[in-house]
């Protein structure tokens, strides 16, 4: 193993051209004389090629998907155009027939050519008309829908009677796809959806009204009833809340074309909360961490849409703004002089603070440039920073420096503070040959989210009926963005240093039961894997206080067994079951909501 790691390190350094000339020579000599080394080298190259294939395939498949949808879209447009064309010909013929009865002089031959020119125009106008109509006809409304399809899917399939599980109702919104919308849900969730965020399964943008349904799961009882658990690939998660989100148009499920932002309310803020999406299999949910990639995408979404912020947020291009922002220390008079002072100071600031040794470490040669983009807000602070750089490390360095910028006097337009975007190219020249390099986009949104949040607060929003169960003074939030609908969970991994013990026991008369475990110290639910009356929860921290919740349904009756336990090595467990109907089951489970320590 040791030799292998050494070989790998050497090979990687060699392939990345990080070795000096002498080192490279000696590497090549070693390679010639050592068969194992050759073997490792050949493998490593093949491996890198193989890994590369996974990412290339992803790109290619994405491209193929786009290509096919575009093609269908074109064909669709063509067919519509032809149909509309026929319709118009038909109408014109009808009309001219009418005319003919009055005026038979009209030459018939001209008709087809006229009709063919018309279609594209009329398609547009037809579409527009429908949109406008709907805008006026259907104000935003809300209602509760009974039952949630997905949840019933998630339930055990054993049941065959008419009594349903007391499932939670989805909150139902009707919103207009062309408008930015903020939804406020009864238990405190906020969802921000930008205009034109939806596409259908064929990848086409969706216009007009969209049914949007959200079910919130913050309470242990709701989670238990929906059969939810909080694990990711077997690892325990602590949840900050789960949602089931669906968007529908004419009964068809829609997808997101750009991310939506979700704020999960919470009473105290825990670190490291991340977004997970849920996948169901065997009536158990597995939460999958949303990958970094998606988070980068989110940044694009954060770009403000100027029309939302008509009052609160005005952005004016830097070279057009009446009074440019003033860099501290610029005393010049007049717009032009201030601008050139601003540019100079900015450049000097970046060149002074930018740590060029990073580029040296990367063995950069020749010319290269780092472009830094940011905006200066109405208070003179920098936000929404991103950089285009030939290496991610250089991009990050640019972000670091940008965040060091002092507060400036904000730009003004008609004596009102406004936001201005700014861009500064940093050109560097090292000795040696210039090489063509790919460009990375590196972005950092921490500062931006704050100021963006403030802006959103001022926007009018849709409020769902029902009392908010969290008073507004204690609302803290986790703000997350997602580009996927469906099951969404704001979670973090929990790691315990405590001694672990296998928690597995036999439970009598538990055939067909759902056995869940709720922790007292963290908001987390586990489902026991069942096998012949044995229920297995894997390895858990010893002596942890937990509540076992066993629910069974026989015919129309529910049986509920509850037991407080300490995690320990046991082999059997006995439980008393209570006979309940659907409503009282819900009530009993709701008592558990206070079980969790605050």
């Amino acid at each position: 193993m040791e030799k292998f790691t050494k070989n790998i390190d050497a090979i990687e350094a060699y392939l990345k051209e990080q070795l000096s000339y002498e080192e490279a020579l000696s590497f090549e000599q070693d390679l010639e004389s050592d068969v194992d080394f050759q073997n490792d080298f050949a493998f490593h190259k093949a491996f890198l090629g193989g890994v590369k294939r996974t990412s290339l395939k992803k790109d290619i498949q994405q491209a193929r998907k786009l290509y096919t949808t575009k093609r269908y879209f074109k064909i669709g447009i063509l067919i519509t155009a032809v149909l509309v064309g026929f319709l118009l010909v038909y109408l014109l013929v009808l009309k001219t027939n009418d005319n003919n009865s009055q005026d038979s002089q009209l030459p018939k031959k001209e008709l087809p050519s006229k009709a063919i020119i018309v279609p594209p125009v009329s398609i547009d106008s037809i579409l527009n008309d429908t949109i406008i109509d709907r805008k006026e006809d259907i104000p935003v409304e809300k209602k509760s829908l009974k039952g949630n399809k997905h949840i019933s899917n998630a339930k055990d399939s054993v049941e065959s009677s008419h009594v349903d599980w007391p499932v939670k109702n989805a909150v139902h919104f009707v919103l207009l796809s062309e408008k930015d919308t903020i939804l406020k849900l009864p238990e405190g969730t906020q969802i921000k959806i930008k205009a034109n965020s939806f596409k259908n399964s064929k990848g086409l943008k969706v216009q007009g009204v969209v049914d949007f349904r959200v079910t919130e799961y913050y309470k242990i009882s709701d989670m238990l009833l929906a059969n939810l658990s909080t694990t990711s690939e077997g690892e325990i998660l602590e949840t900050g809340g789960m949602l089931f989100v669906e968007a529908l148009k004419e009964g068809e499920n829609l997808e997101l074309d750009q991310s939506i932002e979700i704020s999960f309310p919470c009473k105290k803020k825990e670190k490291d909360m991340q977004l997970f999406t849920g996948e169901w299999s065997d009536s158990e949910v597995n939460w999958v961490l949303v990958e970094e990639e998606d988070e980068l995408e989110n940044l694009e979404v954060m770009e403000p849409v100027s029309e939302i912020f008509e009052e609160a947020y005005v952005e004016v291009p830097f070279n057009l703004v009446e009074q440019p922002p003033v860099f501290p220390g610029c005393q010049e008079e007049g717009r032009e002089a201030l601008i050139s002072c601003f540019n100079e100071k900015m450049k000097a600031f970046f060149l002074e603070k930018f740590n060029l040794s990073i580029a040296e470490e990367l063995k950069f040669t020749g010319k290269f440039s780092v472009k830094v983009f940011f905006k200066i807000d109405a208070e003179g602070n920098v936000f929404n920073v991103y950089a285009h750089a030939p290496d991610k490390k250089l991009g990050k360095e640019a972000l670091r420096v940008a965040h060091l910028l002092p507060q400036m006097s904000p730009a003004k337009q008609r004596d009102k503070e406004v936001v201005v975007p700014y861009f500064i190219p940093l050109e560097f020249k090292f000795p040696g040959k210039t090489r063509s390099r790919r460009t990375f986009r590196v972005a950092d949104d921490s500062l931006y989210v704050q100021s963006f949040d403030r802006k959103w607060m001022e926007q009018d929003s849709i409020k769902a009926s029902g009392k908010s169960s969290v008073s507004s003074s204690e609302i803290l939030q986790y703000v997350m963005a997602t580009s996927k609908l469906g099951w969404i969970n704001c979670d973090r991994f929990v790691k315990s240093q405590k001694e672990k013990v296998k928690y597995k026991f036999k439970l009598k008369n538990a055939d067909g039961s759902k056995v869940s475990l709720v922790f007292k110290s963290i908001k987390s639910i586990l489902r026991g894997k069942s096998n012949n009356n044995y229920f297995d929860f894997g390895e858990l921290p010893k002596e942890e206080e937990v509540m076992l919740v066993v629910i069974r349904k026989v015919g129309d009756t529910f049986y509920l067994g509850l037991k407080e336990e300490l995690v320990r090595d046991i082999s059997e467990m006995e439980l008393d079951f209570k006979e309940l109907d659907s409503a009282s089951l819900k009530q009993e489970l709701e008592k558990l909501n206070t079980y969790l320590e605050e």
Partner: protein
Amino acid sequence: MNDKKILALFKNGQEEKAFLKLYALYPRIEKLILSKGGTKNDAQDVFQEALIILHRNLEKTNFKLISSFYTYLYSVSRFVWKDIQKGYSKQELMDFSKEETEMFQDVLEERKYKLAEKAFSELGNRCRQLLQLFYLKDWSFKVIATHMQFKSEKIAKNQKYKCLKKVKSIYETLITNHS
């Protein structure tokens, strides 16, 4: 055509866009494969392989695209298809021009990468994630350690070696089973 634009897209790291542009050539490749008795699915696979080989070559410093993208992809696709069909006579191999020999070798080499990809796909989830973050996204071990909940940088690094060792043994068994 707009070959230059596509080349620029590749250079700027906008692979997906470049591939999308190249997909305009797909119908003609599909025709080729269908005419040789393949299915539409075969055509998709062949085209994907051709794009991967093209991309690999574009990354080499000494590679020059002499002909158009179309001619290049067309010939590579032919080779890929032949390789799938395992249909080279000795005479054919002898008659290859220099360029054809190179393409043929590219296709052969890609087989190795395919095997490595297969070996990689047989790894556990965490290993795959770790290696992808390190090799594709260039994340440092420090970032990987926090992201993947490793206790320390060092553990993440050790894990990398272990995962590599695992792929290697899978790869080696695949190779022996293959030949």
